[in-house]
């Protein structure tokens, strides 16, 4: 006699044909859906409370990881419209410098400089990128690669905004724990916000522009305007990260435009998994701590770090998140055989 049950995948039955219709039959199914999200939110929220155990250093690592995560989320949104950015540092730098300048020149308190720098910075970045939005692929990528370098050298050459010395003695933010919480909140809001956005009809238009822009034009949609909106939305987390770190360090210099802020978000998204946002964030929360773990190795650090990157990309080309998600969807449960009631 065969067993009186068959194996059934847990996610079958929960998702009814469409992505956004859920037919929940039990609290276990609810748990299955909410579990991963709750684990992520819970984990992130508890982390800063462990300060006494893990030490202040790791709190600062978390802050860096969150900044990179914000830039990576921003990268992923741009990529979903078909814009490949190699210059995420621009968002970071512009946000940082606007906050720094407002605080340095007019003593605007951080409570105001950060939101102003976030929105104004995103507007500035959108305006700068607007003329090149019609470029695609490698051409757009090259322009974005150049822009942060251009800003760096411009500040150096003209000695505006403190020149090579940067703007220092800026107003500090409250306690680090609070700052980390703000950063974590920003990451979570961006993550869930972008995920919701891209699954809406609006997001469908954005993805349509990436896959087939002429069809979107033929559908009567102004793709330049939509791309500009996407750049603005993508710039927001980047400029916010720049502004937040500027006040945390009480300093902003031309290193805000350094290639690190362009490459790390890109690498994070690659190892985390493109197109899901969760992947971008997981990648950043993996890469940055790994980099920190290797700090003791001195020059060898970059070697180990690069090797790990290569291993990830060769071993899991789809990205951590896609892999984990697939495994999770393959969880099975015992289900009654068809016909048995």
């Amino acid at each position: 006699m065969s067993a009186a049950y068959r194996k059934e995948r847990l996610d079958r039955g929960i998702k009814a044909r469409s992505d956004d219709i859920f037919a929940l039959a039990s609290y276990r199914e609810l748990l299955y859906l909410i579990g991963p999200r709750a684990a992520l939110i819970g984990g992130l929220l508890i982390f800063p409370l462990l300060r006494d155990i893990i030490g202040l250093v790791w709190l600062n690592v978390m802050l860096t990881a969150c900044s990179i995560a914000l830039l990576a989320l921003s990268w992923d949104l741009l990529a979903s419209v078909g814009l490949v950015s190699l210059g995420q540092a621009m968002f970071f730098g512009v946000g940082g410098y606007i906050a720094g300048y407002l605080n340095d020149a007019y003593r605007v308190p951080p409570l105001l400089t950060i939101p102003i720098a976030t929105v104004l910075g995103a507007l500035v970045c959108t305006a700068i990128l607007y003329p090149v939005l019609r470029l695609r692929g490698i051409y757009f990528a090259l322009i974005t690669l150049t822009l942060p370098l251009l800003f760096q050298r411009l500040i150096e050459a003209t000695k505006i905004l403190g020149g090579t010395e940067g703007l220092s003695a800026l107003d500090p933010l409250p306690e680090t724990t609070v700052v980390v919480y703000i950063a974590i909140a920003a990451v979570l809001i961006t993550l869930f916000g972008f995920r919701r956005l891209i699954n809406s009809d609006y997001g469908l238009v954005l993805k349509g522009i990436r896959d087939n822009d002429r069809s979107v034009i033929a559908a009567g949609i102004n793709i330049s305007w939509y791309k500009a909106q996407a750049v603005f939305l993508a710039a927001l987390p980047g400029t916010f990260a720049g502004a937040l770190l500027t006040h945390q360090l009480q300093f902003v210099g031309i290193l805000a435009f350094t290639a690190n802020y362009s490459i790390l978000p890109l690498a994070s998204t690659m190892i985390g998994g493109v197109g899901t946002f969760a992947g971008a964030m997981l990648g950043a929360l993996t890469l940055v701590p790994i980099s920190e773990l290797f700090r003791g190795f001195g020059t060898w650090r970059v070697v180990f770090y690069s090797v790990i990157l290569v291993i990830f990309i060769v071993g899991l080309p789809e990205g951590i998140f896609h892999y984990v998600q697939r495994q999770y969807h393959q969880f099975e449960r015992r289900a009654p055989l068809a016909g048995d009631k």
Partner: protein
Amino acid sequence: MSAVPILAVDRLHKRFSGIGAVYDVSFELEEGAALGIIGPNGSGKTTLVNLITGFVRPTSGRVFFRGKDITHLMPHERVGLGIARSFQMVRPFYNLPTFKNLIIPLYSPRARRIKGGEYGNRDEVAIHLLEEVGFERDSQVPYKMASNLPHGYLKRLELARCLALEPEVLILDELFSGMSLSEIASLLPLIEKIREQGTTLIMVEHRLRELFRIVKEVIVLNFGEKIAEGAPPEVIGMENVRKAYLGTEVGASA
């Protein structure tokens, strides 16, 4: 001519890096008319469509919509006015389920203006449109990825994409190419219905028999020039049209 023509093309001229693709083509269309554009391969039919819809800028000449010069409008703005086109080479969003392909045109300002209050759920409108162009009711086909659809269905999806925009002028660029005879036969009533509802129709087509069932006037292009226009039977009888399609005898110069 009493009324303002819905679409007027005035001496449209297009050169691609010195080589002429369309030479001084002019025509006018009354509202509700159905025009066929025919001609041998490479005669500039698709370029003419691209010029009318704004995907290609003319070297000279102008396009009027209801008497208004639209030559400098962007393609999406012309769609907003009600000029919709299908692509000869199908251009679906392959990574999306078929019905989701229609969400994008349904999201356009024009579709939202027209259909906005009428329906709450765009997914339902999309499924409905697919049924209209001949996707089987209650089948799984609308939910399949567009990349899994056979070519005939993709052509119908192109048509549905245009219909989602509630066009006033519908330009079909070789809709029938690559479709089987039975598929074409099943679409003909729909296109006739569209015409009867008052939509102005322009069809670029190689399948003359089917085309002539729908349109009552044609223009013939050859090497970018309009060489003939008129009712289908007379045009087909013209000497120069026959020459353009069948070629002239070579050998005199050899």
